């Protein structure tokens, strides 16, 4: 599945299903399980429908009546960045970026006696 049509075309993959949603919602809108299920079902149907390598199925879901999300689709507000620079990108830190501080403590506890086997390449 993809929400970036031009990138998927450039990379080339055997089959794809295009979801025309803002990045970060490849498999649906939040808290809409029925809609998420419908999207996945329609995407998986591409396995029996598509017949040519590289073909892309367009899933006909619409994000919203307001098409404003298509303007500046990559601009994200990063409080640490200097807005005047126009650089909205997140600093590329090379240490684990936990969602919650508690996650760090839990991961450290889990790895106290060695690797957990499920963080491959990060232990």
């Amino acid at each position, binding site marked *: 599945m993809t929400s970036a049509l031009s990138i998927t075309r450039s990379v080339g993959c*055997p089959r794809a299903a295009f979801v025309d949603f803002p990045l*970060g919602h490849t498999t649906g809108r939040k808290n809409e399980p029925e809609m998420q299920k419908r999207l996945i079902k329609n995407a998986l149907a591409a396995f029996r429908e598509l017949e040519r390598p590289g073909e892309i199925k367009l899933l006909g879901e619409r994000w919203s009546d307001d098409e404003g999300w298509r303007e500046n689709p990559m601009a994200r507000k990063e409080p640490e960045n200097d807005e005047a620079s126009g650089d909205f990108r*997140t600093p590329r830190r090379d240490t684990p970026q936990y969602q919650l501080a508690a996650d760090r403590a839990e991961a450290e506890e889990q790895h106290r006696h060695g690797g957990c086997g499920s963080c491959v390449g990060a232990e």
Partner: protein
Amino acid sequence: MTETQQARPVDYIAETRATYDGLGYPPYQWVENEGPPPWTPAEVPLEEASVALLASGGIYQRGQRAFHFKDDASYRVIDTSVSAEDLRIAHFAYDVTDAREDPAVVFPVEALRALIAEGSLGSITPQAFTFMGGIYSARKVREELAPALVERVVDQRPDIALLVPV
């Protein structure tokens, strides 16, 4: 539906080029693969097929190490019986607000389980694989991460694989 009926999809390649130009950086190098991609017919009906899930949205599970943001080519193994409350997100290249509230928007394990329950999909492999797709080294992906993931996925013996990039 044909492509022409769709409202103009965002061209992220053009957007990224414009951003890099604006910052005075050299052009971003996209992967461009020439020629038709490989093709394996999907012979098992979806109602009987086992699906493997791979997602690049920076999903990790409580107790696992989070991804870092500097060419992190590591991956996480997540049991597909996982509870949504135990899933977390670490990624620098998209707005993670909604994914943190409902990880199903980038890691659809619940939707796959629901499709299995209603009989329209056969099964899901015991393990899913996740990584943080903001890796600037195409070489690292091609030579390290992708082959490692292929090996792990093939070990799960799926009939089909669902890739969920962001």
